[in-house]
């Protein structure tokens, strides 16, 4: 992870007392010791497969089509079979069963969940991608070029005061305001969540850059005459990335929760798309008649967000040298 530790490890190779371990091996050893984090990782891997498979299957395979409406089959509990006389053979669900039941229009909840897993995950990843990019860019500028003067104030003051301004808005209220005023679209939700959550990353990266700038390997890189672009992106960013990665993992979880909260208030992703959030908020009206419409997406969101949080915590333990000794 860090150039200097790597060199220290190879230099003292002859001494038998120090185990020879690359930073990556060390990371894997600490991460796999945390069983909860490993379990979270496995769940996320399965989810990723389900999301990609869901995208492919619901787009092109008829039995998985999430938008097939079969009104005679509405509100069937999980594991019930479709009524043969009204549902055409090519419209039958997979395995000839409604694995998760059907909703108020007779749509197969299992294929809706599959379709939703891709949408929910992409909201999380794209929102976090936007916020991390802005955070690294602004934090890096403030940390590296902080002392450059623009007109009357330094770049650092300008960027950090802007961060303060953004921190003054109550985040969820701001997201709600903007999402409600903009035309409803899945991209607006991703962009708005991303644009309102970069402040933490920006502060981390700035702090890391301020301390990295003074370190010997950066001075050495300067002395070698490397271009600044290379110093920043090849030498400093990889060293500052650990806390960003942790907060990004947890950020995906937060974004999925935010989307479901927006759906609850009626500003989430709009109907043709299924997300776990809007299946859940649609199911809340049928909580007595068709409890599976409420509990299946709710528990799915819970498990996935929990997995993201546990993996994030595992990464924090494994990447933070200060915690290792304890």
């Amino acid at each position, binding site marked *: 992870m860090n150039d200097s530790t790597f060199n220290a490890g190879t230099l003292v190779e002859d001494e038998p007392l120090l185990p020879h371990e690359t930073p990556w091996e060390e990371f894997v050893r600490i991460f796999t010791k945390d069983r909860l984090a490993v379990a979270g990782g496995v769940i996320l891997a399965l989810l990723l497969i389900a999301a990609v498979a869901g995208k492919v299957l619901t787009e092109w395979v008829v039995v998985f089509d999430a938008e097939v409406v079969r009104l005679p089959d509405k509100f069937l509990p999980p594991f019930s079979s479709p009524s043969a006389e009204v549902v055409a053979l090519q419209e039958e669900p997979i395995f000839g069963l409604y694995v998760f039941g059907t909703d108020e229009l007779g749509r197969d909840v299992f294929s809706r969940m599959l379709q939703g897993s891709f949408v929910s995950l992409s909201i999380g990843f794209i929102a976090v991608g936007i916020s991390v990019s802005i955070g690294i860019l602004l934090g890096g500028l403030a940390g590296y070029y902080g002392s450059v003067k623009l007109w009357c104030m330094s770049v650092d003051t300008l960027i950090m*005061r802007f961060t303060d*301004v953004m921190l*003054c808005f109550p985040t969820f209220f701001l997201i*709600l*305001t903007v999402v*409600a*005023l903009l035309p409803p679209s899945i991209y607006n939700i991703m962009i708005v969540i991303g644009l309102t959550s970069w402040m933490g990353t920006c502060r981390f990266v700035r702090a890391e850059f301020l301390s990295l700038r003074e370190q010997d390997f950066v001075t050495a890189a300067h002395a070698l005459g490397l271009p600044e672009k290379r110093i920043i992106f090849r030498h400093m960013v990889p060293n500052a990335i650990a806390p960003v990665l942790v907060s990004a993992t947890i950020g995906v979880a937060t974004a999925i929760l935010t989307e*479901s909260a927006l759906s609850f208030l009626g500003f989430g992703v709009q109907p043709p798309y299924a997300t776990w959030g809007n299946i859940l*908020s649609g199911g809340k009206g049928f909580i007595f008649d068709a409890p599976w419409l409420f509990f299946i997406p709710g528990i799915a969101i819970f498990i996935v967000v929990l997995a993201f949080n546990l993996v994030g915590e595992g990464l924090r333990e494994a990447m933070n040298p200060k915690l290792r000794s304890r």
Partner: protein
Amino acid sequence: MWAFIIRNVLQRLVLLVIVSIVAHSVIHLAPGEPSEVDPANPRMKPEDIARIRAAFHLDDPLYLQYAYWVQDLASGELKSFKDSQPVLPKIWHRFLNSLPLFICATMLIWTFAFPTGIYAAMRRGAVYDRSSTFVAYALISVPGFFLSYIMILWIVEVFGVPVIGMKTFGMEDAHPAFRLMDRVWHLVIPSIMSAVLGVAVLSRYVRSQMLEVISQDYVRTARAKGLEEDAVVYGHALRNALLPFVTMFGLLLPGLIGGSVIFEQIFAWPGLGRLGYEAILARDFPVILTINFIAAVLTLAGTLLSDILYAVVDPRIRLQ
């Protein structure tokens, strides 16, 4: 100290102006206007829309609209677009409704988070620590309204605690003591549900802070000189671990507005968050802007307060 406070107050005032300008531009530049809330209404004629736009100054340039808003806010005559009621009394009324919920939730958070966090830190790696860690993550990960709905289903059946609104309808003539009990009874579930996330987050934070302090040299010294474990933990370690939490009192303030939208919506609580939500639905710009402005004031006051508190409780920190 005083120089620090004065300089910070001035800086924050400048920030406040910038925040309000940003909020104003975001809201006015986004598509959607008060006149378009109900486009399907056949009685809305183009001349009505023109009249509404003129009455709300919506045809003026943005900087003039901002000036109108500042002027009306300063003179206290800001009117809601929706019902022409003055905005400030309306917000104040809703604020008084939100306040008991906020106070109860905050008290619950602080009473439960500290014991769980400290106990977990003292037994690091034991069953209690690992299970409380897992429970905390579970509570952080569950969507708030999902948990609330499950609680409503279960609790109304078992205990008969009310889950809708602030008071029972039709109890206006009852004895004041009954009315008070009714209000308290209605507070129970909403405040517990809004405290759940806070307890989980804060207890994790208490635990890590406690672990940080417990490995310091002065704790080892205290143990080495033969003090009892309780004296070491509560007299020496806890006091120092508490320092960052004192500053959190300041950062709590903005939670009054931001955190409550969902829970006030679920429990039909007529509070500030719900006022904001209704204002957003109605494109009621003066109310949205003023709530945003108050939130910004609370945030800035909160961070200033936390800086000052930090210097007051921790003599190692000097403000200059």
